[in-house]
């Protein structure tokens, strides 16, 4: 058999790699190593370089939501006294921390917590609460929200000081030492992964896009949890190559004709992923722009730039820069409209969503819709409400296309 026949598709490689990373954390725990629970945009360069196993409650929240356990876990947390207005990832995590079991997915229990508030400020309270309940140390890297377009020197120094202190504390907690040469190598690999991931998702600009945009939601997990590993870099390079080959042939993994292209704003509705996808796919709508997936890629030249890179993650940016990212993405990827997910879990994202939608519409002239939902709590979503909005969006996009043809 030739190599090309034997080679597994990148999406399978990525899934297996994700499982392997999770398994390694369990193995480490069994060996008696210290394991951490880690925020999704915490600088993974530190833990990867130090060989410290960490797992991600946010990923678990998404997986539990997608596998149908979100409501049960959220209701359990609400029964413990947590407000239903809290993020569903946090509620699932609080429930898991108390129950110590979850049929959809489990992660090893932590010896320490690593929090970084660049993706969410509410997360500090989530992790503080865990630290108190479990009586384990919490290490926080506080990344101030960017109120300007660039991350200045003062901010970089502030983040760098915490970065260095975090390494010192982790050395104390885990007994493992940071090797600066290893850190340098991890930084290189992380960027190799990030470049490949960005190259892969960049093919969404092709017409048709070589893949269904919802695949990003499945493939991005490794970009989050394992981008500092050679296997991840290679898997993303393979994925990018596969997309490149499809794009060159004008082919796509999207089922059916790509009649319309949209920007999808926000985290996926994991509990209704299939429904939200099908309602689009059956109408020939492909997701060809999103900020969420590419957010888990970081490019930098040195350590100071690494600090700045973590200040530029979507939820940490100033509004104007955020808007610009979306508008540019929409124009580059030639979208016909946009769908904004009013994700009730995410206070940052839902807080500025109406204004983001309004300004996006104003600047691009594209039709937009907003639908109510939640990342992992299925109770905030209505199929009929979603369907009506999508159907009306199609009617507007269709009309706009007719106008384009006439022009």
């Amino acid at each position: 058999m030739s190599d090309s026949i034997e080679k597994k598709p990148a999406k399978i490689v990525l899934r297996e790699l994700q499982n392997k990373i999770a398994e390694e954390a369990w193995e480490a725990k069994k060996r008696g190593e210290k394991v951490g629970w880690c925020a999704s945009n915490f600088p993974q360069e530190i833990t990867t370089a130090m060989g410290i196993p960490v797992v991600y409650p946010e990923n678990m929240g998404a997986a539990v939501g997608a596998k149908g356990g979100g409501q049960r876990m959220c209701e359990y947390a609400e029964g413990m006294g947590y407000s239903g207005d809290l993020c569903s990832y946090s509620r699932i995590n609080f429930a898991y921390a108390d129950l110590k079991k979850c049929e959809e997915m489990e992660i090893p229990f932590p010896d320490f917590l690593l929090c970084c508030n660049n993706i969410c400020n509410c997360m500090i309270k989530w992790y503080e609460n865990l630290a108190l309940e479990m009586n384990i140390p919490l290490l926080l890297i506080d990344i101030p929200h960017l109120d300007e377009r660039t991350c200045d020197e003062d901010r970089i120094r502030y983040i760098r000081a915490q970065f260095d202190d975090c390494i010192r504390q982790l050395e104390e907690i885990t007994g493992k030492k940071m090797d600066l040469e290893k850190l340098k190598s991890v930084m290189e690999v992380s960027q190799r992964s990030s470049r490949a991931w960005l190259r892969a998702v960049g093919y969404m600009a092709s017409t048709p896009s070589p893949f269904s945009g919802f695949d990003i939601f499945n493939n991005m997990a490794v970009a989050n949890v394992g981008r500092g590993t050679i296997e991840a870099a290679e898997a993303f390079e393979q994925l990018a190559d596969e997309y490149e080959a499809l794009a060159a042939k004008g082919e796509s993994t999207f089922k059916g004709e790509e009649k319309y292209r949209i920007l999808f704003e926000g985290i996926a509705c994991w509990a209704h992923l299939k429904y939200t996808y099908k309602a689009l796919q059956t109408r020939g709508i492909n997701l060809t722009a999103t900020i969420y997936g590419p957010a888990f890629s970081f490019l930098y030249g040195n350590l100071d730039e690494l600090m700045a890179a973590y200040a530029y993650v979507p939820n940490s940016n100033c509004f104007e820069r955020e808007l610009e990212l979306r508008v540019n993405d929409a124009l580059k990827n030639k979208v016909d409209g946009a769908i904004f997910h009013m994700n009730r879990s995410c206070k940052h994202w839902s807080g500025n969503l109406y204004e983001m939608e309004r300004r996006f519409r104003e600047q691009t002239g594209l039709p937009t819709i907003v639908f109510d939902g939640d990342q992992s709590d299925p109770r905030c979503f209505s199929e009929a409400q979603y369907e009506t909005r999508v159907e009306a969006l199609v009617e507007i996009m269709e009309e706009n296309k007719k106008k384009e043809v006439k022009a």
Partner: protein
Amino acid sequence: MADVYTMGIDIGSTASKCLILKNGTDISGYAVIGAGTGTSGPKRSVEQALSNAGITINEISGITATGYGRNTFSEADWIVSELSCHAIGIHAVFPDVRTLIDIGGQDAKAIRVSTTGKLENFVMNDKCAAGTGRFLDVMARVLELDVSELAERDAMAENVVNISSTCTVFAESEVISQLSNNVNICDLVAGIHRSVAVRTAGLAKRLGIVEPVAMSGGVALNSGAARALERELGIPVRIPPLPQINGAYGAAIYAWEHRKQER
């Protein structure tokens, strides 16, 4: 040439509306049944509209279904969102209207209508029932009034009571509490209308108001709510003669236009 009849059926959450159009312009018959999707309402509305028009279903050359129950109406030739149907319907009545506010049983919409009567953009209420017809239904029940009596009571209000809660359940408690303090019912009704109007005006402002503005949906039959909306927007709001069947009207026009293209 024989007359061509088309039908539009708007199957909402609380009511089914059916309208029969002759030759794309004349309304031959219509019916509004206070029972929506999943009930006998759609069937009854069709039967009643046909009876009012004095024709049989076999004489209908095309049917467009719209509204929440649109996908459940198997006889439909076309299924179109109520957003587009409302835009088409209001354009037929008021060709210059650019913004339409539609308040239905479970949602409120602000719709931008193009100069040619197409849906250009829209915003809808979020998951909350405040500002919808359901909110008024709940409040009317608390006040022991029929919704059809609300307009008359509103007209007699002297001091509009402030209803501060947007949540329907909280607002219900607030109204009950005001009632127990012997607050005048007319003043309360006006306060309830203002609450709906504030919420809906916010929605319309988010879309961006382009005049002239019209209002449709069952709530537009309530002149108290319509006046409150005018006050909140600070501009006149036009009401079509049959606001509750505006969506069905647009649907029937859609069917007519598509049959015409096929011929």
